[in-house]
């Protein structure tokens, strides 16, 4: 068998108004590639919108001079989306706190990383010369 893959790459300004369009491009591709409904309509859109929102709001702090880049790669074995921001990065696993605990369930924030963690098979992070990247991995 020869190698086979599809990749999607996007770059856009640090504006939360961009999130829906970016997520739609990614989920349309997943539907086109016949991923299960649960992946294309729930797991990917929620996990990706959390990562992109965080990149815009936390990583780039909505700085209009900074951009977010998303790179999605679909191979026979996995679906991988990388989200690059131009911030300093953070320790994702340290920042996940269980939002279902009685003292946190009534808080407005703090569910993003938790949902990513619930929906994804693996999350990786890297600090690069130009910023921070989070890698969302769903096995096929």
């Amino acid at each position, binding site marked *: 068998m020869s190698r086979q893959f599809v990749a999607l790459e996007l770059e856009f300004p640090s504006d*939360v*108004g*961009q*999130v*829906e369009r970016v997520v739609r491009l990614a989920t349309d591709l997943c539907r086109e590639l016949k991923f299960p409904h*649960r992946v294309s*309509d*729930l797991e990917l*859109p*929620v996990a990706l*919108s*959390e990562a992109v*929102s965080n990149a815009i*709001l936390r990583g780039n702090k909505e700085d209009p001079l900074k951009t977010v880049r998303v790179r999605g790669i679909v191979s026979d074995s996995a679906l991988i989306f990388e989200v690059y921001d131009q911030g300093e990065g953070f320790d994702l696993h340290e920042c996940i706190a269980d*939002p*279902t605990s009685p003292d946190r*369930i*009534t*808080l*407005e*924030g*703090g*569910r*993003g990383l*938790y*949902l990513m963690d*619930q929906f994804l098979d693996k999350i990786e992070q890297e600090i690069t010369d130009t910023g921070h990247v989070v890698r969302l991995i769903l096995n096929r």
Partner: protein
Amino acid sequence: MPFSIKKQEDITLIDVEGQLIVGNRQELKQRVLDELEGGARKFLINFTQTGYIDSSGLGVLVSLSKKIREHGGELRLSDLNDDLKTLFELTKLDTLFLISENREKAIESF
């Protein structure tokens, strides 16, 4: 406009037209708070047209529910598809909200 609001007797019916996410949740929040300010107490948010909600959308629902309760009001949700139900279960928000199968049942139970 991603939200439509209408009244049925003393109930304020809000239809979310599309996803409830970081790009539009502030608008939902503001419009519901305006109604609350104007005296409305019974709120029903309907999700027939919604595919998914992100964490910021869930957060807005949590904070609206708190605000409405503080004013002696009540917030109900209806017509969650299976994906939305999964989201509410994973976050245990199904224990915090009054959720009805559909709009009719929600209206009856106020």
